[in-house]
């Protein structure tokens, strides 16, 4: 137990824009990130009473986008401090985050998840594949289409995969 506490103390707070001087805590990036976070927090406070619940559906991604969503939850970005959290059920979700081109085998599951969400609902398509099918191509028998071809999309974030910062920016853009 003592060792756990010691380790926690030793690492300190590494979250972006905190006062620590971690090796990768470069000034510019941190300031930009904090500014973004503040804006996001304000938007979530105003429109969602401080808590935005997101349900993720992988509609056929290569799992690269999932890694970056995980990264957005790590101690550096700690997206949860701005009020964003990922929920297990679409019933609680305010926003649907979709990654990957929509495969023909996932189309029904995606539509059902979307329908299970209470209105009003927001949809954010994450990554080049979700935006335009990416490297997998639109001329493919196994791809039903981009996310916008299947369900209404409010915002798109490009990247292969988009970085955690880009993801947070996109969530903010979706709210606005």
């Amino acid at each position, binding site marked *: 137990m003592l060792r756990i506490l010691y380790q926690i103390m030793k690492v300190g707070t590494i979250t972006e824009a905190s006062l620590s001087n971690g090796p990768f805590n470069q000034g510019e990036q941190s300031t930009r990130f904090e500014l973004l976070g503040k804006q996001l927090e304000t938007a979530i406070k105003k429109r969602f009473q401080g808590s935005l619940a997101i349900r993720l559906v992988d509609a056929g991604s290569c799992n690269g986008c*999932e890694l970056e969503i995980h990264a957005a939850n790590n101690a550096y970005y700690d997206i949860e401090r701005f009020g964003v959290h990922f929920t297990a059920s679409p019933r609680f979700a305010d926003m649907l985050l979709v990654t990957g081109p929509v495969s023909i085998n996932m189309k029904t599951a995606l539509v059902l998840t979307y329908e299970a969400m209470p209105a009003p609902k927001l949809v954010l398509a994450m990554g080049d594949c979700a935006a335009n099918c990416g490297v*997998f191509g639109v001329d493919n028998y196994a791809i039903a289409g981009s996310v916008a071809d299947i369900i209404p999309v409010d915002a798109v974030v490009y990247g292969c995969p988009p970085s955690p910062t880009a993801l947070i920016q996109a969530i903010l853009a979706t709210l606005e």
Partner: protein
Amino acid sequence: MKHLANTWFAEQLSNHNIYTEYLEDHHPARMPCLDIRHLDWANASKTAKLLGMRFVALWAAQAGQQDKKALYAYMAFVHPEHRYALLRTPINLENPEIASISQHYIAAYRMERNMQDMFGIKVNDIFDNRWWIKHEHWPEDAHPLLDSFDGNTPMASDPDRADIDYDYVPCDSECAYEIPVGPVHAGIIEPGHFRFLAVGEKILNMEERLGYVHKGIEKAMQGRNVEDALKLAGRVSGDSTVGHSWVFAQACEYAADMSISTRASYIRGVLCERERMANHIGDIGAVCNDAAFAFMHVQCSRLREDMARLHAEAFGHRLLMDCISIGGVSRDLSTDMCQKLIQQSRDIAAEVEHLRAIYADAPSIQQRVIGAGIVSIEDATDIGLLGFVGRASGHYPDARIEAVYAPYDELNVPIPKGKLGGVSTRVWVRFEEVANAARMIIQLLEHLPEGNIQTAWKAPQAGESGFAAIEGWRGEIAAWVRFAQDGSIDRYFVRDPSAINWLGLELAVRTVPVPDFPLVNKSFNCSYAGHDL
């Protein structure tokens, strides 16, 4: 020619009265492809089993531009001493059928089902005839990998088949109940369906239903030029992008009979080992998180992020995508950057060792992981489990040794040898591999030779094929490529280690209560995307 043709398997088969013909247009010669008669197919696999060979993969290919009519089935095996060998046999396109080999190699049965789905080849005597990647809503006559199938327009579902459900293993007992899970799971993970049969808390049986993220990768590969195809190969499974890019590039380089500079191969090794470190560290944290030991998860994801940030700086991509090119690597390393990478690999390995001591001394996590999700040595050997999953269960295949490729042919690759086969052993193997990977990265970077990082690519003749195996972080990735007339890809087959390791998960969860499933699942962390293609 660095290596001579490997004739061992051909001699052994001929001792068992199986006649083989060596295919000249397949490379490299030390992993030969042998043509056998259709009627010898099952017998050849039986012989391979008797010889103690491990099953690698099974696939089919139309002969493409060489002969529009021909259809071939392939299988690959590897012997711990005599290495890889491929077998090929022609199949009659008018009446396509072949004998099943799953009675000898259980791991082949999903690949055989896949062959039935994709080519309409009837596999005789297969004990499980259900559709696999082809889900129930597909039109019955859809066989996407046949040349006659139009792969360019999204396939419409068959409305008459919309209500058909997959035929899951039933249970008549009144005590047992079913739990359907997925395809959309609770966490931030990929989609797939699990059907549990449980009695009280205990799992009687768990059945996987995969294929949800099938994206037609094999069909989409056909006709692409090598650069575009490489981009796609790097996205077969995003967390294993280095391994998949490498295996594609290597198969192409073998087919073209070219070799890359030592410097490029060293950098590839660094990329692959860094990927191994990052994924193992992330997964160790995630396993602990599934047993409510959040401290480890926070610490490990911090280390993983440190690695991702240096990757962005050194290689231009946080997950190392598109860093490998055909004929080399796309980014060179400066001396400064080498020092940074060495330093960070060393620091992170030391931090992981420190965390490991905390993990090992925490009874709350140890009680959950010890003895959970066991795969026995017999089962692991029988299935041929790969990578850290195999190494935790007394089965130790490693392509870095078996496939003999640079830079590992100059390195000492230590293999952690686990036996107990549970979650704790898989975590132990991962800890060991993190330490070993860090050592190898440092060794490679300290001795990084001068030279080019890119050798000019010259496309091979139409019909030339190459086979390669690379030890990605999950285990051996095997790939086979054949070229068309204009230097484009005629057929690409790739087998992610998940295609085999998913079978191990079904066995591992039979001993645990339902709430332990996520823990066991995470300790395997098989790729859905890499399996579904």
